[in-house]
């Protein structure tokens, strides 16, 4: 009899369980309490003759004899785990997809690594490597022996349990109560990449668990098909709440791709102010500057003083990418000049903007083609361009980021 300190789940699954009553029993699954910091195995799902039971795992012993794992149980004591925060290792983890939080991607679990301590059995890692696959097939040892003379080894890859986010299968009726807490700590682009790799049902499920703010950031980063999928599966109120938190031009883009009825339903559900803005943007043809411009830009009146302007900026706290150029309009909202942050900082507080602004503003019409925008931006090395309408009124701003996205999209289409 050899004491065991750590072992793989696959090595004990299906094994016979020795017990005083001599009943014919075998191990089907292990149930782990995930409410504590260390995930401890609290119960085992076993098959005794024909019955399937959930029994207390603290009465189990595991040791090794002649290279085989032996399971021993002093008494099959059935316990109730209904109200506990648990995960079934076979049902929810083994062979399933999980998120590797460090690699920030979806991977498939080949095996689970457990540790046997004096205080109980704990889950320490999941195996996603080739070695795990071969072990399950009973091929790991022979292949290792073959490779040994060549000084090569099979790639093994373990992910610590702390870096694992389980994703329940869409048809499992027991919801995993750990509702993707770890996932919401990821950067929205990483999270978007992960969501895209999941199947449609899980996509919707993970997305629904995010708070509105995070959901809006993630939605912006998703590919069109995933965007449509999550929007169609969310309850209409939640979907509207998420969309309200996004820039109007992005929402207009997404709604353009949705079914007309669904888009209309969402617009009706949203606050009037937001939906009006979006509707306006949606009227522009797809290749017009108007369809990609941002409408919640900031502008100042010609008679504002430098001090007033800086005071306004402090109040508005604009995003970094809209603060490069501050546009100045006259009383009819016509674009009359542009002031840079530098100009503001070096001028005396009481100077009015019309004295320091640059009157030679490069601008585009909202109905111009997007391609002309690219030329202008690269020609004058701009970070943003103001957009005016027929009456020369300032109606929006296009930021270079949005153009890069447009360009990438166009390139993808050609490929």
């Amino acid at each position, binding site marked *: 009899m050899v004491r065991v300190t750590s072992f793989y789940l696959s090595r004990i699954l299906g094994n016979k369980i020795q017990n005083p009553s001599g009943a014919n029993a075998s191990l089907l699954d292990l149930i782990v309490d995930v409410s504590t910091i260390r995930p401890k195995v609290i119960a085992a799902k076993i098959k005794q003759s024909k019955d399937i039971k959930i029994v207390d795992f603290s009465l189990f012993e595991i040791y090794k004899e002649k290279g085989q794992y032996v399971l021993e149980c002093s008494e099959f004591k059935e316990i109730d785990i209904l109200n506990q925060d648990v995960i079934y290792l076979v049902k929810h983890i083994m062979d399933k997809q999980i998120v590797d939080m460090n690699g920030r991607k979806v991977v498939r679990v080949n095996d689970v690594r457990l540790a046997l301590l004096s205080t109980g059995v704990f889950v320490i890692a999941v195996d996603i490597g080739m070695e795990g*696959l071969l072990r399950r097939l009973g091929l790991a040892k022979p292949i290792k022996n073959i490779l040994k003379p060549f000084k090569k080894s099979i790639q093994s890859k373990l992910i610590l349990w702390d870096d694992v986010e389980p994703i329940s*299968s*869409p*048809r499992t009726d027991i919801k995993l109560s750990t509702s993707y807490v770890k996932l919401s700590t990821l950067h929205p682009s990483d999270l978007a990449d992960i969501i895209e790799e999941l*199947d449609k049902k899980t996509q919707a499920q993970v997305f629904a668990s995010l708070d509105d703010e995070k959901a809006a950031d993630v939605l912006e980063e998703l590919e069109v098909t995933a965007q449509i*999928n999550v929007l169609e599966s969310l309850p209409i109120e939640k979907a509207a709440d998420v969309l309200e938190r996004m820039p109007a031009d992005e929402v207009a883009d997404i709604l353009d791709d949705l079914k007309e009825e669904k888009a209309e339903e969402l617009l009706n559900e949203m606050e009037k102010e937001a939906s009006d803005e979006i509707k306006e943007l*949606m009227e522009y043809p797809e290749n017009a500057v108007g369809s990609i411009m941002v409408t919640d830009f900031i502008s100042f009146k010609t008679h504002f003083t430098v001090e007033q302007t800086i005071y306004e900026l402090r109040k508005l706290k604009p995003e970094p990418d809209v603060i490069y150029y501050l546009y100045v309009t006259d009383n009819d909202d016509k674009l009359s000049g542009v002031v840079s942050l530098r100009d503001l900082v070096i001028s005396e507080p009481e100077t009015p903007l019309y004295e320091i602004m640059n009157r030679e503003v490069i601008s585009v019409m909202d109905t111009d083609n997007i391609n002309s925008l690219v030329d202008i931006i690269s020609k004058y090395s701009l970070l943003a361009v103001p957009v005016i309408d027929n009456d020369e009124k300032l109606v929006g701003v296009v930021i270079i980021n949005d153009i890069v996205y447009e360009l990438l999209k166009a390139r993808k289409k050609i490929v």
Partner: protein
Amino acid sequence: MTKVKKSNFLTQLMLILGIIGPGLVTANADNDAAGIATYASVGAMFGYRMLWGLFIITISLAVIQEMAARMGVVTGKGLSDLIRENFGVKMTLFAMVTLLIANLTTTIAEFAGIAASLEIFGIPKYISVPLFAFIVWMVITKGSYKKAEKFFLIISLVYLTYIFSGFMAKPNWNEVFKNTFVPSFSLKSDFVLIFIAMIGTTITPWMQFYLQSSVVDKGLDTKHLKYERIDVFLGAFVTDFVAFFIIVTTAATLHKHGILIDTAGDAARALEPLAGKYAAYLFAIGLFGASLLGAHILPLSTSYAITEAFGFENGLNKKFKDAPIFYGIILFFIVIGAGIILLPNVPLIKIMLIAQEINGILVPIILIYMLKLTNSKEVMGEYTNSKTFNIIAWATVIFIIILTLILLVMPFVL
């Protein structure tokens, strides 16, 4: 944005048209190079005698395709994903090896089709096969195969001409109808073998994987199930409608004159009543489209199935070094598929038939996995198989197994 509500009928129609696709496309792609060769051989060798088989296979096909589509709609997952998650690594490996063998032989058959069709235009296989192996690789890796797919599909619609040719060949309609509904059977091994090939070309392992992924890709919901069913049933009917006429046409023209099919040119002769001296060219165009379509779908869908099951990196948006196994399988399929055809003196039509026999022998394995999954409450919830579906699907499985056993036993009995 229009605020006008569309009439109910129109919305319904738009909905149906939006959903229809995967079933019809998959079914049509199934009339590939090997399919044409098999149906044509069935007609040429045994006349109308196997029509009843096709009639029954059509029902099986519809039921089995519906199972795949339903699984895709309900779970949102591919077939290989489901196999891995529900049966573990060993059973997954078994399923994947089955798929690999069946699909590799089919890929070889598709390249045989490319070679055979272009030989009719006088292009030797030593030029056509390497060239198109390269083109297939480029189209797949450049990610433009979705567009190419539609193009090849349209070319392969040339096979609809068999329907007209079928009428113009003036078949004995009485015989046709009688044989469609009254079974006749022979225990001779060439009869059994071609019968298995006929099943294997109609209900293939790859189709189940491909159809399910297409359905998943479309993102259909359970509320679309009714329409997806129409799509799948229509697909099964249309494919076998074409197959039916290929058999009738070749039976009425080739079988009557005792011509067996050894080359693509022989199969083309069945189109003579319609196209006269242009028959060979017409046939070649269709065969070319169908083969090229298959040569794209098979490597790609096999690679997706295998990498998904084992959790290897995959996807056409990844670079070769990030997903080496994914691209490796595709490359392997194209190299072996084209390579075997380049061997001197390989009989092209024969290869297509052998591929379908292997498919037929292996298809029950995949069907058993599908039956297990579609009957599992855990996987399908309330959408498990109905009793009728189970009976038809199991009968198909058992029937093919019996045919395979006959094939194995016969050489010893006779």
